[in-house]
Structure formats: C-alpha cells, structure tokens
C-alpha cells in the first residue's frame, strides 16, 4: 500500500521510506476509505450465503479491509444488496440506506438485485434495486461466486480511488444529499416519486389491455 499512498515521482530518502510519505489529500483520503470499507450486515436471499462464504476463511474478504460487517446502518460504509428485493422488503432497504452516513455506496450482488434475475416476472419482486437506490457496482451471476464478489468489491475500491474531494465529495457540501422517499405498500408498491404517473395510469386506463382486467375478488 506504500506505493499507492506516495505520490509518484516524489523521492523519499531510503532511511525514511518506512515512516514518511508525501502525497496529496485526495490520495490519503481515498487510501483510508478504500481499505476500511465496512459492509452493512444485511442478508436477503441466496447470495447472502455466498457472501458469508466470502467472509469465511477460504475467500476471506478481510484481506481487503471489509471484515467488519455492521448490523447497524449508522456504522456502515456500503450496502450489499445480497439477493432478491421484494416489494415488501424495499421500504426497509430504502430506510436503511437513508440511515447510512455519507459517503455511502451500494453494491447490487447477483442477478436479482441487479435486474430481478430469474424472479423478475414475479408479482412481488422489484426488478433491480436501482429502481430505488443509486447502485455503484453490479455483480452478475446467480449466485455470483465468491471470486466474483471479491472482484466486484475491488471494483468499488477502484471507484473510490478515482474520486476527488473537489468534484465528487458532495457529502461535504451544504445541505448534504436528500433522503430517498420510502415507498409505501398499497395495492401494489407506491413509489412516492412516481405518484403522478400512478394516478394517471390508474384513472385513465387504456381499454382492452391485459393489465386493466385485473380482477379483484371479494375483499
């Protein structure tokens, strides 16, 4: 890590090279962040089992500084969406994301979290967490192997490496970022950002399409 911390082209005398590094603020800031990424401990489905495997001794993502899984969103740096996101679960996930402190990242792990996967056509599945949260890294596979997860996490580290305080650190700007509105459960999932569209679609139904023949038996 010493090489990546020291700015290229700056010579450090041999006897000081273990103790002194000359670098930029961006570099040391990102060096610190990339090597202590703490994931939010939240397992959703099948991918969570492989995530636990990745944490265990054979694959061991603590080699990259990620071993501290935090059950509390207040202490987590990034969120691993480890499995199928259902309409019943997505309000909780959005709330967890809102509770995480900046800078925060989202990794969509596996096919389901990235785009619905094999369960996309299901009536209570959200086809990809990116409908609600800004995703930084998508990892394909069903379930993606532990190796693929490690690769995805290294991609996240690369992304952090390329961020600069000047242009990317919106979390230091005034006001911060606005929380994402938590969706509510109605007859279907109500995304509060799309409320106008929902009203238009349900009050002026196009006749003859399958979607409108939605029979609601006795309630």
């Amino acid at each position: 890590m010493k090489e990546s911390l020291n700015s290229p082209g700056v010579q450090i005398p041999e006897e000081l090279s273990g103790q002194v590094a000359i670098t930029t603020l961006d570099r040391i800031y990102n060096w610190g962040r990339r090597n202590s990424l703490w994931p939010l401990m939240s397992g959703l489905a099948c991918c969570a089992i492989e995530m636990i495997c990745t944490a265990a001794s054979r694959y061991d993502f603590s080699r990259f500084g990620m071993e501290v899984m935090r059950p509390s969103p207040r202490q987590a740096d990034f969120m691993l969406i480890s499995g199928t996101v259902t309409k019943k679960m997505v309000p909780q996930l959005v709330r967890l994301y809102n509770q995480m402190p900046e800078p925060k990242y989202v990794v969509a792990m596996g096919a389901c979290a990235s785009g619905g996967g094999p369960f996309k056509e299901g009536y209570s599945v959200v086809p990809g967490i990116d409908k609600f949260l800004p995703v930084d890294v998508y990892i394909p596979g069903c379930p993606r192997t532990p190796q693929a997860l490690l690769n995805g996490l290294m991609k996240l580290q690369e992304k952090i490496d390329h961020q600069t305080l000047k242009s990317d650190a919106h979390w230091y700007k005034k006001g911060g970022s606005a929380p994402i509105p938590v969706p509510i459960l109605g007859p279907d999932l109500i995304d509060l950002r799309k409320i106008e569209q929902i009203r238009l679609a349900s009050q002026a139904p196009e006749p003859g399409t399958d979607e409108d023949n939605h029979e609601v038996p006795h309630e």
Partner: protein
Amino acid sequence: MSDHSAIVSTIAEVLPEWFLPDNRPGYAGLIVPSERIHEAAEYLKDQKHFDMLTSVTSADYFPEDRLEMVYHFRRSTGGEPLRIKCILNRKDSQIDSLVDVFPGAELQEREVWDLMGVRFMGHPDLRRILTWEGFAGHPLRKDWKEPFFEEEIKPYKSRWPDGKFIRAEEKNPLGDNLCFPPGFDPESWVPDKDETLYKSMTRVAKAGEDGFDSDTIIVNLGPQHPSTHGVFRMVARLDGETVVDLKPVMGYLHRNHEKIGERNTFLGNMPFTDRLDYICSMSNNFAYALAVEKLLNVTPPERAEYIRVIMAELTRIVNHLVANGFLLNDLGAFFTPVLYSLEEREFILDFFEAASGSRMMCNYFRFGGVVRDLDEHMMGMLKAILERLPRKMDELEKYLIGSEIVRVRSEGVGILTPEAAIANSATGPLLRASGVPYDLRRADPYSIYDRFDFDVCVRYHGDIYDRFMLRIDEIRQSIRILKQAVRDIPNGPVLTGKPQYQVRVPAGEAYGRVEGPKGELGFYLVSNGKSNPARYHVRAPTFINLTSLAGMSRGNKVADVVTILGSIDIVLGEVDR
C-alpha cells in the same frame, strides 16, 4: 400402494356419504363435501389415527369454476399420506378451518387465503401472510395476472423461436413491475400500520407482585436484524424480558415461486427449486424430480439412484453443519464456529461444482436420472470427504458439547413436546428431537433408502440442545449411508431415455416428497397434459415448522427466542417461496 388403497376403499365404504373416491384418471384420494371437512378431519384423527395434517393447499381449475382444497394427512407411525379434497366454487370460496383440530394448519390456511382467496371460517387470525394487507387480489388464481404478464405458459412466442423480445418494462404503462386497480388514488391511500397484527396478540397487563402496575411492550425483531437468519420478522410482546406472545411475520422474500412455476415448463422449474432452500439445492431437486416421475411413471437407472442418494446425504451434511454453526452464532459465539462449519462445507461444494458445474445452485437432477455421471476423480474427492468428515465431527463435538455456555443456554430452553410437535405438523429434526422417531426415509421409503443400513436418530427432551445434538447424530448417519453408497454404486447409465427439454407429462396429480434436511419437503403437482404444471405447490418444511415457534417462545427470555429460531433452522427462500 396396496395398503394405501385399502385404507381409501375402507373409509369410502364405511362412510359413503362423507368420502367419495376421486375417480378421475390420474387422481387419487377421497373427496369430502366441503361442509363436512371438519367432521371428516376429526374422524380421521380420532378413528383412523391420521394424526398429522402435513399439507394444506388448493388448486384452481379456472375455466371450470372449481377450486379444490387439497389436504394430506399422515400417521406419525409411518405410511403413505391420505389425500382428501374438497370442491369449492370460485366466486364465494369458503370452508371451515381445521386449526382447532390440527393447529399445524394455521399458517398454511393463511397462505391459502392470501394466495388463493379461500376464506377459512373459524380461523383465529386470518390475515395475509406472504403478501401484505391491502394487496389487490389473490395471485395464484388463474385469472389473476401479474404486471409483467406476457402469456399463460412458457416458452413465450416473443422469445422462441423468433427471438424478437421486448423488455417487459416497455410494455407496462408504468414502466415497472407495477399494476394498480382502476380508479386507484395513491394520495388517499392509508397503508396498513400493523395495528391488526398487534391487536391480535395476547395482551396480559397484570399487577406486579410488589404492587407496581406493569404493562407489556411490543418489540419487533427483524426483518433487518443480525440474528434473524434472513429477512424474517418476529413481533414479540414482552413483559420485562419475558415473551408473553410472539407472532412470526414473513413474506419479505416472497418471490412468487408458485406463480412462476405454473408458467414454466416442467423442466424449467428444476433450477427454480434450487433457489427454494438455497442451502440444500440437491434435496429440492430430488423431491421435485420424484413428483414429476410419479406423473411420468419412469424410474431412474440404478447408478442414478445411488448418485441421488449420495447428493441428498451430502446436502444433509452441509445443511446440518451450517445450521449448527449459525445456532452457535445465535448463542453468542460470533462467527468462529461457523468458520469450522463452512470449511467442511467448501469441500462438499467443490464436489458439487465438479459434478454439476455450480457450487450452490446445482440443477443436477433430471426426470429419470441425473444430468451427468460422476467420474473417477470425483469419486476420489468423495472418498477424501468421507475420510475427513468423521474426524472433523469428533473435533467439533469435543469443543462444543462440553462447553458450559452452550449447555446452560440450550438445555431445557424452547421445549416442544411430542404431542405439540405432531399437532403442529412439525417434521424433520424439530420433530425427531422431540422424541418422535419419524423419518420419511424409513416411514415411507422412497428411492433406494430401504437398501441402506442406518438408524433414525431421535432424542427425547425436545429442547435446543437436543436439536443441536440430533443434527450431529444425523451427520454421522449420513456418513454411514454415504460409505455404503460409495461401496455399492454400480456402473451404468445415469438417465432413462433421451434427455428432453419439453417433457410431455400425462394429466393427473402427484405428491412427491423427501425427508429433506429440514423436514418433509413435498411438491404437489397437477398436470393437465400440457408441458407446464397446472398447479405447482411446495410444501415447505420450515414454513410449517414455524407454527411451533410461538409456543416454544412463550415464557422464555428475548435472548432465547433468537436461539429457538436458530434451532428450528429456517431458510427464508423456502419459508416465503
């Protein structure tokens, strides 16, 4: 089968006005008039000793305006299940609840209400279970269409053979997996705040012994909670630290397995079964393959039968290792014991990967065999696993059984009596640790399990410790079976007939089940002669085992509830489907 059909015909003869044999070709069992179901269930329980109601489900025969309730009764002493059906109409479907006779029907009847819209009269707490209160419609009805609906059955014409596929989002008016009833106004909608759930729980406000008034509080554990084994939620009413009442809340991983399964082809469902109980995918494959083979009436060749047993028993070992590891997690030994479990699991997963091409989602079984043969190298891997595992189990036992913390936390906690276990339709280690030696591999043998020499493990205290130890015992028995299977496995083909993508399945119904690592895993299938199942129901063992959770938790401390849940060993993929 002869024993079973004898029971069916005697019952039908003794009470002809109650029980009519189901004579449709491909169907079996008895039909009971729907107003008689309660008396019939009592009769079967008291007179005929069918003391377990293992499965409650329903099937929608849409164009015919007919909805069938399908019950499977079992004897806890063994034997085949007895299938009872009730015919309802689709408009106003209601039937008497069986919860007072068989408490194990509680969650299953709620599921049938939620997904199929059958109202159960006299059910103590008939709320939606997998979807949420306020959800529009009952999704498993054949005329209910999901927002991304394309066609009734696969393969969809848009994808095959022409392959001009348009993304589902582009067809939906909202551009998303959403669909609202006509005239819905999102702004006036009042979401359900779980008030009905909280009100349904026992409320005991008592005056304390020392004269202070005390009240109870509601605490929600989950769905995001470090101890809940996935997205499971428990609502507990606490008096101090003691649990007064507890309700499981599920559906946070409801992935519409059954609706998707009814659109898929028979073979197309095989990879979906992997994702039910994602720790034991091979067992799920096994049960589904057995159900379809019953309809097809094929038997796999000898070598395939042995390979199936090998895979199923390895899966059992994996599951029990993981279950025990996470149980210790819940006891507070955070992550260290799991590392030992996962280490052994990796060896078995490597074997699965060599055999099937995937670590977890194996998709290895086919109707009439398995997809690939095992070669010499793989058999060598298997022998190495079998040489290593007994030593490792000794090691695990040495470190854990004597541990005072494990024993104090688990002995005498979360007791399930044998009577309650049978009444709640519990199966698997949960039932056997309560002193009921019921294992489908012996009670109602399938595949070639009758050839192997092994013991049905049973322990008698019904507490967390016994469930923990029972899993260790079962691993040892599985190793015994595996050693015999490796010794006796013959050479030969591994698949009957040619591999087919679209299997034509004769019309009829079938219930295939295995003794999965978590209990009786069953698939109830109805075929109407097409390439897709008309009804596809999964009898998920952990879903039904959760019926016992509230009873085991009452009177215990909150911290113990977490371990009690761990000892039931749930996997949410299967609970919520």
